[in-house]
């Protein structure tokens, strides 16, 4: 039972979940992100950018899997569409002599729209199949996407197995040609994506997604069109992953098909499960674990066991084992993810000193 606080209004009641500690955490996080490029070295910038890109993509998976209840193991393919889309569109705009300072404003939305379009197509089976069957269908779709990218016939556009060298984006003449500058773009997009998607679930569309997740035929009886909303969910989800792909292409100097294979799709789902499905902060926390845990393990085991060649040979498999154990641990002991743990912490802070947990 909640005690220690008298709730006299609905607003006060809501503050059980939306309390000052949470607000401070969000704004503190944003302030840290803004200050970060002024103090961080290049390695930390690299990790932060990998993290930001992962957050945007996992937010996309969250829309589909966390909120709409449709499982996908193929979202790595949508990231690939975004990455290749933005690179190819950039090249096309350059060929058409579109001013460089305007190109990202066209290329990024176009790549997202392309990913959304493919998302609609991939989402069609979701009208007939659910659960593991849908997971397999989406997995197959991602294989087809990678196959098409690698196809010799399309190689003049996609670079085939050699990949494509990506362009440095220019925003009204500000060329983002260092990782530190691209960080600003990634951080802004990550923050905006998290906020926009959170707000999506205050709308009619978002609530329709949640209704489908809870029981799809009940939702249909209530007047929610499954065709329309399942496909909308796929499109929004794919568009987020397309944005992640576009940021990926701007960040790395090259896009290669092998970067978007099964491993990436699995990482996206694992990040969501660890962070918390259907929660705003789920992707934020989950991506933190997926990106930072391997780095942290490398640094810790490196400090403990030394950096000799022999130690590295033993450390490498140990890192993989610890990482696997960490994921299993989360699923076993906190299936609702880190978002649930953080809820408990903030609730305890809010009620302190009267109650815990």
């Amino acid at each position, binding site marked *: 039972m909640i005690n220690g606080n008298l709730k006299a209004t609905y607003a006060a009641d809501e503050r059980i979940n939306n309390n000052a500690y949470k607000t401070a955490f969000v704004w503190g996080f944003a302030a840290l992100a803004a200050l970060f490029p002024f103090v961080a*070295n*290049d*390695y*930390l910038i*690299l*990790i932060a950018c*990998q993290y930001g890109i992962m957050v945007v993509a996992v937010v996309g998976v969250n829309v589909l899997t966390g909120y709409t209840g449709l499982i996908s193991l193929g979202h790595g393919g949508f990231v690939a569409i975004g990455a290749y889309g933005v690179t190819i569109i950039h090249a096309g705009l350059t060929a058409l002599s579109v001013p460089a300072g305007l190109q990202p404003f066209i290329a990024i939305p176009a790549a997202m729209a392309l990913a959304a379009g493919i998302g609609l197509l991939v989402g069609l089976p979701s009208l007939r199949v659910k659960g593991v069957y849908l997971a397999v269908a989406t997995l197959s779709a991602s294989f087809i996407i990678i196959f098409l990218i*690698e196809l010799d016939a399309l190689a003049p556009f996609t670079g*085939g*197995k*050699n*990949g494509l*060298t990506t362009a440095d984006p220019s925003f009204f003449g500000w060329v983002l040609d260092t*990782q530190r500058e691209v960080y600003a773009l990634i951080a802004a997009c990550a923050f905006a994506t998290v906020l926009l998607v959170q707000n999506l679930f205050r709308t009619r569309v978002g609530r329709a997604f949640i209704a489908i997740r809870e029981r799809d035929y009940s939702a249909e009886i209530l007047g929610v069109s499954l065709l329309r909303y399942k496909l909308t969910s796929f499109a929004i989800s794919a568009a987020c992953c397309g944005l992640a792909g576009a940021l990926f292409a701007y960040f*790395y*100097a*090259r896009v*290669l098909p*092998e*970067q978007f294979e099964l*491993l990436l799709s699995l990482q996206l789902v694992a990040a969501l499960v660890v962070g918390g499905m259907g929660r705003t902060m789920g992707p934020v926390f989950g991506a933190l674990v997926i990106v930072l845990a*391997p*780095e942290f393990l*490398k640094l810790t085991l490196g400090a403990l066991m030394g*950096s*000799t*060649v*022999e130690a*590295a*040979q033993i*450390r*490498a*498999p140990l*890192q*993989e084992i610890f990482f696997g154990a960490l994921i299993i641990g989360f699923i076993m002991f906190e299936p609702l993810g880190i978002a649930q743990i953080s809820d408990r912490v903030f609730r305890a802070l809010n009620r302190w000193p009267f109650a815990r947990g």
Partner: protein
Amino acid sequence: MKHTSLTRRGLLGSAAAGAATLAMPTVLRAQPSEYIIGASLPLTGPFATAGQLIAPALSLFESMVNGEGGIDGTNIRFVVEDSGYVPANALANYQRLLASEGSNLVAYYGDSTGFMQLVGPELKGDQARMMTSTSFATELANPETHPYQFMSGPTYADQFDILLQDIAAKGGKTVAFIHSNTEFGTDPIAHGQARAAELGIEVVLIESTKAQGADIPTHVTKLAQANPDYCILQGYVTGVWPQLIGGARQFGLQTKFMGTFWGMEKLIADRVTAEAGPFLEGYQGVMPYRYSYDMEDAPRLQQISEISKVALAGTPLENYMPTWGIQAFASLELLTIALRRAAEAGKDLSVADNVAEQVAGIQDVDLGGYYGTNISMENNKVGVGRVYEYSAETNLFTPTSDWLTA
């Protein structure tokens, strides 16, 4: 007696001044206490076998170089990290090391074509270090597009060139190319076609397969229909010999099979022979280096053999250093020569341009027997190789050609 009081502020001030004085030599010193050479190896993942076999070579090389006085009196130290054969992981490893070691990091050893492609455009200003890797990708041998990356052997296109020269010299008239559907597999195919036409050899079949041995019988049927004198396999590390060559022999085909560097490892050929029979008898391929047992007039290979007997006693590498290890040795030897020359010239080794200049200046050098000839660096590669043939009886690869230049 005069009373002196020790206040906390005074103590902190003295400590700060002392620390600054102690730190002064570090700031002024031009040469670090040790030079760091970083490496990403696939110690886990699909190519873990290769990574785990290359790792001891780095360790032995470190002790060899430091035993000779390091680089201009300063020892080297390898810092190895696992990449899992994921290019982005290797890039993170490189940038992590760059951040932690700064100017002590003087060179890097990469583990894949993908990593070299990904890191190439990032090598700018103080983010650049000289690099070599396990890759022989044709694209990388270009000082204009990849100024800080070099390879210690011929590109895959050059390796095809050498094999085709050998086929022409032995009177071969027709050839088939069977390659994996990977970047590694497709790399030299176009060049191979053009070169075969120049040499008057007809390419009767170009066949793309999966990298692992699924669905091989259909390819064997096509090979049987084409019935070429020679068949060059490209883009496989293991896996296809039993199905493809074994299958062709069951068909009664007399085609001679050939491979490139990654298809020339004795440990794998021995294992396949032990498990599946002697069908690799007569298998040929191009090698940029000598095998570690071919030690005559090769002081470096003799030295590796001696220290391996002690340092790697009880392991499969005790009496034989794999070709992948020899590749690492040769690449690092070239790197060390360049680093030593740059150090002797008083240059800063953490500036990639200084080392790249010395790498390009390696001409007509005897490297101590890794190669059977003096070598020169041209277009960031060493374009020599020799054709070897495997004997299932002796389990040895022996040379069947002279050293050829692509």
